[in-house]
């Protein structure tokens, strides 16, 4: 196991947590010494995350959710009732079930929003971790805001401002930027360092599908958010959260001066 490259089935089983403890440890030993296989595992994990997002393409619309939920409950009282496609075709006894369904629908929507937030957090972390890889260089490498900001022209459906270097918090530096997507929406990924800690700032347009993630700490990384009139800013880093908040407020202030 430790001398041979991993095959695709081993990588799939590894990222799907389908290996036994012994198998997983043996595979991990190989990954510790094999850069090529480590990259393949990283790639496979990224693809898995992207599929999980893309695979939820068909959202259940509220009216369809009500119909399906009502049918579950109506069937319990009217087992021989033909499945109703329209609310008006339902028997009277199903109306009480419909009322319960509406309550349920609200619960499901709240539940979906929580799931969305969890997925967004995972995506933010994935993208930040990818920037930490030595193999990942920014698409635009520059400490100059006059280089970074124009690079996004024509790529984003919004514009943003960057503060002068002297206006940034102490020991904070712009390193470059990437054009990326977050939950399928175009985003600017600005890369900073604070005291040698790498920081990812995701800028997206407000009013899109993306929710503002709650402040959280996951696996040692802090996630903080700020909003301006037009933009949503999300920061991810392992730096002190107070330093992260300071950078976010500086960037938010720069939008106000825009």
């Amino acid at each position, binding site marked *: 196991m430790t001398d041979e490259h991993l095959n*695709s089935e081993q990588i799939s089983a590894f990222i799907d947590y389908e290996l036994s403890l012994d198998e997983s440890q043996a595979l991990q030993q190989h990954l510790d010494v094999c850069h090529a296989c480590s*990259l393949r595992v990283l790639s496979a994990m990224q*693809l898995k995350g992207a599929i999980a997002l893309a695979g939820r*393409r*068909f959202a*259940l619309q509220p009216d369809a*959710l009500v119909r399906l939920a009502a049918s579950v409950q109506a069937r319990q009282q009217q087992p021989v009732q033909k499945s109703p496609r329209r609310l008006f075709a339902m028997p009277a006894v199903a109306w009480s079930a419909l009322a319960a369904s509406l309550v349920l629908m609200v619960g499901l929507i709240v539940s979906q929003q929580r799931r969305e937030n969890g997925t967004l957090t995972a995506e933010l972390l*994935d993208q930040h971790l990818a920037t930490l890889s030595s193999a990942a260089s920014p698409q635009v490498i520059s400490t100059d805001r006059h280089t970074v900001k124009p690079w996004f022209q024509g790529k984003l459906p919004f514009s943003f401002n960057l503060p002068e270097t002297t206006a940034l918090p102490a020991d904070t530096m712009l390193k470059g930027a990437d*054009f990326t997507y977050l939950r399928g929406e175009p985003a600017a990924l600005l890369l900073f360092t604070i005291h040698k800690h790498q920081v990812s700032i995701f800028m997206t347009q407000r009013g899109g599908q993306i929710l503002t993630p709650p402040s959280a700490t996951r696996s040692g990384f802090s996630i903080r958010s700020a909003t301006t009139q037009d933009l949503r800013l999300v920061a991810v880093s392992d730096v002190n959260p107070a330093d992260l908040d300071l950078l976010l407020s500086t960037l938010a202030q720069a939008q106000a001066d825009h």
Partner: protein
Amino acid sequence: MPSVHARATFEQLALPLLPSLYNHACWLTRNQTEAEDLAQEAISKALRAFDSFQEGTNFKAWIFRILHNTFLTSRTGIAASRTVFLEDHLPVDETPSTDPSPEDNLIRLAHQAALHTALDQLQPPLREALLLCDVEELKYKDIALILDVPIGTVMSRISRARLALRQLLQPQFGKSK
């Protein structure tokens, strides 16, 4: 029919799965109206057969199996089954590479449209196994139960689906550079 208590239990178990059942039904039928009908029929069958559900086993896998089987016996499913799927064990390119892969680009260019197109192009049996794994987060043994195939076949289909996706995404990301 199940008892009142069993019905209440069924409701508790089934209702949270409606969005997932509908999403999966859409992938199977490729038609949202048919998908809603399929999900309704599967729920109806599941309720009627709920007495056979063994408490402590995976309800999600159980009802997804009913959904899958209901699809297979539907008009769309029968038509789809006429397309012969050459099962597994085809040789694949296993050469490891340190070059940036499509997934490296995905993390930056997570281009949903490209991924949607690639997923559309996957062979249905590969796509279904992959979606059950990555979207529904089901274990291989549960996917094997749903699809009624050996667990080794599930492993092979998921692996082949990912390789096929990589190959499908490669030219699209190549153009975007």
